[in-house]
């Protein structure tokens, strides 16, 4: 199997930071707020590998830093320290040493992101088709007919009614907005997709269909994905491997089945036991 992404010692600190930040935060200290300087250690020392066509789960409670990890990798925020290498066919990109134009190129051509809140991923003032067109135009497809066809194919694939291609996403239901977001993320057929709490806030039947869709896409396109969620059901259904985060640290990692059936860390045991 080919490696797609290699993350080493990723850290992100909000605030000026001090020498005592690291030792005075984390699961043992039971906080991510440094008592000495007031900085928030959102993520510290996170490392993982992701292989072609694999789905990696990142789970943890609110504020554990799981969304920050993908935001750093998708360049929504700059990492404080650490290294991430993206392997694209024959090429390698050291993500955090790229300039902003190169980052934008990777974002537009090789990465996809689906946010929990569709407002972040979609422009609500342009049509569903226009949103997908934007992404295709960003990746230098300049043919109107081809853009139109591709947008329709993608929306059909994500089960959005074709009669609504030219409607504004603000008139869509939450589930449909999420489908449009997925279609937009897939527009350039990226080898790497980030999913940040995609099903949170949707009702159960819609959740199930979106998860089905994600699995189908993974089977079809062999897209590697990083799935961030606090929902253990999503982790169980989608992911092969998972990492568990608390107060910005990875406290457990391994095969999803193992983590869910035989959790080692006390926090993970509590997490698994608390599933209704």
């Amino acid at each position, binding site marked *: 199997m080919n490696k797609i992404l290699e993350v080493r010692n990723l850290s992100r600190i909000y605030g000026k930071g001090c020498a005592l930040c690291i030792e005075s935060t984390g699961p043992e200290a039971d906080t991510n707020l440094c008592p000495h300087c007031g900085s928030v250690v959102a993520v510290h020392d996170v490392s993982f590998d992701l292989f072609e066509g694999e789905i990696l789960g990142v789970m943890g409670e609110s504020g554990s830093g799981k969304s920050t990890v993908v935001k750093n990798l998708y360049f929504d925020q700059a990492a404080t320290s650490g290294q991430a290498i993206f392997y694209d066919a024959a090429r390698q990109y050291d993500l955090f040493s790229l300039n902003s*134009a190169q980052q*934008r190129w990777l974002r537009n051509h090789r990465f996809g992101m689906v946010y929990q809140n569709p407002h972040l991923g979609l*422009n609500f003032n342009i049509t569903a088709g*226009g949103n997908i*067109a*934007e992404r295709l*135009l960003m990746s230098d497809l*300049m043919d109107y007919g081809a853009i139109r066809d591709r947008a329709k194919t993608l929306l059909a694939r994500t089960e959005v009614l074709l009669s609504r291609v*030219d409607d504004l996403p603000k008139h869509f239901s939450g589930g449909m907005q999420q489908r449009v977001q997925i279609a937009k993320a897939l527009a350039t057929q990226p080898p790497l997709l980030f999913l940040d709490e995609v099903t949170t806030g949707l009702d159960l039947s819609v959740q199930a269909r979106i998860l089905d869709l994600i699995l189908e896409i993974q089977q079809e396109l062999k897209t590697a994905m990083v799935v961030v969620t606090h929902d253990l059901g999503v982790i169980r259904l989608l992911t092969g491997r998972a990492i568990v985060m608390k107060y910005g640290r990875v406290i457990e990692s391994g095969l999803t089945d193992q983590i869910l059936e035989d959790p080692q860390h006390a926090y993970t045991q509590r997490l698994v036991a608390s599933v209704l």
Partner: protein
Amino acid sequence: MNTLPPKTDASAYNFGFLDEYAKKEIRRAILKAVAIPGYQVPYASREMPMGRGFGTGGLQLTLSLIGPDEVVKVIDQGSDDSVNAVNLRQFIEMTCPGVSTTTRTVEATLIQSRHRIPEHTLSAAQIIVLQVPYPDPLVVVEPSEDKRKTMHGEADYSRLLVKLYEDIVKFDEITLSHRYPTRINDHYVIDPSPIPRWDVPKINNSEALILFGAGREKKIYAVPPHTKAEPLAFTDVPFRVEHFHDATGNRRTCSRCGCDGSFLDEFTNDAGAKVYQCSDSDWCDEMLLQVKSWREVSA
């Protein structure tokens, strides 16, 4: 107490109204604009004795470039005789002694224009200054100037193209009638001021230097001679200019001079009928003279 005697004559002003430091700064901005085609150079737009939005940007460019041997033409939407053009011309005559003005495009060395480029192809000896209300084409898609600057720097114009896409979806064609976003020298996209689409191809590979001045927005940009200017479009939905065909498919002609190759203005005559006439008044006069001389020759 003011002891200076009141001065009322033109000599009370520095040549070209602006002080020499202001001219120097604007000339520097022009040089930078020419060196980076399509880049919006910020400058300290001076107070002018007229409201911002009445062509102060264009006027400051004109006054910084003008010399006593210059022949100036001022146009307002193609016409030399509309209020804006007349006032600006009189102001230039008053503050620049020795400068001559003209209404003839071919005679002018410096042309200040509001929203039209003359029909006559401009020559290398000429400079055209366009008055600009909104210099940044990205303002329709991005409210933050900071982000717009990054977008310009990275030549990220996909959101402008999405606007065009949405236009085609809604109306089956690109409906922008003026301020058509145009890519200069394969990088920066400019707002070519509210010139009609008809004039956009004239920017491409022009012999004359084209300068844009936005007084209220404090920006100067330029398209140097022989520079590529490419209106944004899709490969399968190309850019096109206004066609002026009537319902039967015939090209409308100017009701005054009969020209069938110029940009036409539509207005209603006293009888309530629609009439078409050349927008460029100098062009229309010239065509009329030609028609007359042909008649005399044939008579």
